[in-house]
């Protein structure tokens, strides 16, 4: 049936909104690459230099090499964590999940400073300890060290994308393979990886793209030792006089092309979406949670090791630096002081910036969630020219370095009242993080079968009702991850904010950076510590809300069914909400001539 104009209108409005938020800043970057100075005309000189000469070949190759290594490393770490959590269900699951996600709460810049404090040759805290035991030292200020830090920093992205997919993966298929004689490795390669392929690919591509455009960690650890990459070239052109934003924009186009290639590969790989549906009317059987088996204890140990290296050690190093006036590699307890933290909490600039950061984070997160959900929904459920175009435009900013997005927004809004206010900081967050959130929702939606929604539609449920009663509950885990990722990324964002802030709209990371830039690492670390504590507190509140919601849903289930329900919490919450759509299901079952209970529990009586 051909769709009517009023039916297309919401999607057209979404397209315009996404174009304004994500498309226009990128367009300004593109235009910037062919402009000559602030008031100059047009020129193709910069594009010629960047694309037709070998001037940036070496930085390009270095960027690809680092991004591939970090993409694979981060994805591997995230996959292993997701596998251990999903399949072995170690005790303390919820707390462990927070620990696994913890690197995203720490800004990469701060995390790198923490690791330098720990692992620099000779005077790094870990090296001092290793030397005391006569053990070989580590050198974090090296290529391998950089890949390691970036991989642990990006692993939570892979974990987030893969965890829910793994939870929804029915182990019966692997059991069937085992019955047919396949060993575990063969089952992983023949069943698990193909089923997880969209999530795996999505994870590798997202980490690859984010690594390619990251400047902070390579800038701190590699550039001082002669390493050259594209993000450094952009930094050079945008900070060293005479500034050449046009050439910086042209360099940014290389990153855009890299991403375009990655996205094309991704789109091609997930073209037949139904191959990857792992949630249908019949739900997977999940292993019991928290049972103490050999595998679950081994998983617990491995996960704790990861949390130790990715979060506990660098945060401890930052905390130590916050309590020392300067770090010489050795200290005694009498050197420790809380003065920096006290000064931070009474500093007007820090407090104002903190308040601004909280406002920006709250507003941007809510907007990001709403817009990303609808963009992904259009892409997955209503594929068509408008939805695809919206998705493409929403995805492009991931490839553009923050600094260029910031410059694009300045060009776009400098003549408007939005310029030099908090609104422009919120806009940069929307442009910057929309691609990540869209990808997250897209992955979640791909794995929800259409049958449930079709059944509800047959019963007369509207799109809004289907979204509220079916999609959102089933996406509860994805939404939680989305809030975590959006909230933390927005709260930590520095590069674009540093270009756009004014005295009235300063945000916390900018103040931290300014202290760091001055060499006042102690105050910067104290503020970073405050930042980390706030993020953890936010996460704790969210976890408690989810926990209470879980208790509520379990009570409701207990009163409605005697069946034991041990499915993962997020799916549990989603199914609990889904059950409230009883009348809708009843009508759907009438239409389909199916027993409502069979529809609810699937053929083998497992809860949906």
């Amino acid at each position, binding site marked *: 049936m051909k769709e009517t104009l009023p039916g297309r209108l919401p999607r057209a409005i979404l397209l315009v909104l996404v174009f304004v938020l994500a498309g226009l800043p990128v367009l300004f970057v593109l235009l910037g690459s062919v402009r000559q100075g*602030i*008031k100059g005309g047009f020129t193709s000189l910069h594009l010629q230099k960047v694309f037709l000469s070998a001037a940036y070949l070496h930085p390009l190759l270095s960027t690809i090499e680092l991004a591939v290594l970090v993409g694979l490393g981060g994805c591997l770490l995230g996959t292993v964590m997701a596998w251990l959590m999903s399949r072995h269900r170690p005790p303390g699951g919820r707390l462990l999940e927070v620990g696994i996600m913890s690197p995203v709460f720490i800004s990469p810049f701060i995390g790198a400073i923490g690791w330098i404090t720990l692992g*620099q*040759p*000779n*005077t790094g805290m870990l090296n001092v300890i290793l030397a005391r035991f006569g053990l070989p030292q580590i050198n974090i*200020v090296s290529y391998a060290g950089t890949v390691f830090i970036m991989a642990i920093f990006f692993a939570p992205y892979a974990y987030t994308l893969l965890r829910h997919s793994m939870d929804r993966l029915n182990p019966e298929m692997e059991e069937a393979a085992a019955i047919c004689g396949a060993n575990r490795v063969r089952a992983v390669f023949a069943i698990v990886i193909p089923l997880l392929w969209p999530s795996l690919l999505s994870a590798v591509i997202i980490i690859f793209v984010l690594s390619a455009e990251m400047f902070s960690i390579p*800038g*701190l650890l590699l*550039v*001082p*030792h*002669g390493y*050259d990459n594209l993000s450094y070239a952009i*930094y050079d052109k*945008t*900070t*060293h*006089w*005479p*500034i050449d*934003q046009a050439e910086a924009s042209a360099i940014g186009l290389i990153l855009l092309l890299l991403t375009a290639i990655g996205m094309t590969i991704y789109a091609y790989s997930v073209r037949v979406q139904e191959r990857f549906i792992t949630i249908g009317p019949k739900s997977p059987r999940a292993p019991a949670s928290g049972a103490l088996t050999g595998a679950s204890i081994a998983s617990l140990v491995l996960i704790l090791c990861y949390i130790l290296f990715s979060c506990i050690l660098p945060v401890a190093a930052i905390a130590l630096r916050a309590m020392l*006036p*300067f*770090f*010489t*590699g050795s200290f005694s307890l009498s050197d420790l002081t809380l003065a920096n933290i006290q000064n931070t909490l009474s500093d007007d*600039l820090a407090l104002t910036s903190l308040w601004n950061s909280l406002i920006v984070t709250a507003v941007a997160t809510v907007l990001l969630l709403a817009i990303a959900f609808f963009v992904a929904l259009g892409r997955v459920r209503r594929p068509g020219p408008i939805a695809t175009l919206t998705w493409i435009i929403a995805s492009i900013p991931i490839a553009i370095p923050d600094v260029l997005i910031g410059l694009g927004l*300045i*060009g776009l809004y*400098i*003549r408007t009242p939005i*310029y*030099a206010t908090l609104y422009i900081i919120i806009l940069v967050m929307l442009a910057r993080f929309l691609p990540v959130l869209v990808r997250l929702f897209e992955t979640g939606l791909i794995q929800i079968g259409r049958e449930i929604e079709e059944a509800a539609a047959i019963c007369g449920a509207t799109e809004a009702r289907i979204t509220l009663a079916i999609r959102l509950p089933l996406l509860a885990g994805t939404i939680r991850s989305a809030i975590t990722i959006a909230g933390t990324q927005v709260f930590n964002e520095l590069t674009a904010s540093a*270009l756009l*802030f*004014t*005295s*009235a709209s300063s945000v916390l990371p900018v*103040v931290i950076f*300014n*202290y*760091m*830039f*001055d*060499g*006042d*690492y102690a105050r910067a670390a104290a503020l970073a510590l405050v930042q980390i504590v706030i993020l953890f507190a936010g996460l704790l509140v969210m976890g408690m809300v989810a926990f209470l919601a879980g208790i509520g849903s379990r009570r409701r289930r207990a009163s409605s069914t005697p069946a034991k329900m041990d499915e993962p919490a997020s799916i549990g919450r989603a199914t609990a909400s889904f059950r409230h759509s009883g009348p809708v299901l009843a009508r759907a079952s009438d239409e389909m001539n199916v027993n409502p209970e069979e529809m609810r529990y699937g053929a083998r009586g497992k809860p949906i």
Partner: protein
Amino acid sequence: MKKALLIALAVAAGIVGKASAQEKISITPALVAAAEKEGEVTVQYSNPLDAMQAEVHDFTKAYPKIRVNLERKAGSTGVQSLLQELAAGVNRIDVFQGTDTGGNQALIDQNAFAAVAPANASELDKSARAMAPYLYYPDKNVSVVMYNPKFVSDEQAAKLRSWKGILDPAFKGKISLVEPSFGVTLAPLLYVVNTPGLGEGFLKQLKAQKPVIYLNTAQARDALISGQQPISWGAQWESVTLSYVNQGAPVHFVYTDPTVEWGGNGWGVLAKAPHPNAARLFFAWGMSNAGGLSLQGPKINMRSELTTLADTRSTIKKLSGQPWFRQPKNIWSPDLQDWIKNGPKYQQLWTKVMKQ
């Protein structure tokens, strides 16, 4: 010949015209009242945050009814941001303070600043007035070589007083440099490229010492204090070094001979400042004795360019008794025109030698 004479006359007339168009600023009750009526002033600056807060604290103590909005946009990035705002007709900033000489000149070329002269302009050293009447430099920057005495002895460090001392094999692998992108990193490079016997050959020898090249001076100081790279060469300046000494950090320093010295922060009143009176008051205070004393305070430690003001810096007095501390002997000041005209060329030369 006739044409050249006419041009010379026109240039002279222009200079006289400019000079006569200068607005003399003195702190009068009328200016203070008008500034207080405006109630605020927005300052874009490059200085370290702590130093700037100390300066604002002193200003606010004198003029409590005026709020100072600080906006830290350092170096070239700050200049570019202001240029963009000017091109778009956005007038938010009242007073500009910048360390990037090339960028400062670009702002002057775009008529960013009002032509002004503080009432005590004649008391300022000549180097403070190099960009007058648009920018004045009330503080003097002095280049130093910083070292960590735990890893480099004071006896060894004495060699660093000579420019070629850094090439001593004993220092190989211990040195950090910083990319020359603004004042404190460019001024020593100007001396190197303009001095016979140094130049590109010296840079090549310096490269052979296997220095680590940081992106900013703070990284170099952090690496120095932790002992990673115990010598920071050509990238540190006196005031920031003194603040580390004050904190008790393991930091000593020497002045090279000759010592590179130049105007630190160029102060300018924006031509279209939204708070013109408060801007003028802040500017005039910065150039005054009170401003000079604030600059010499323990949190800023800058040398004042006011010839009438004695050096009151307490840290320098404390250091005078230290055996390793010696005041600079000979001073070399960069030619600002050379800096503005050839600075990017010298940066490229540095990059060619050090990065390839």
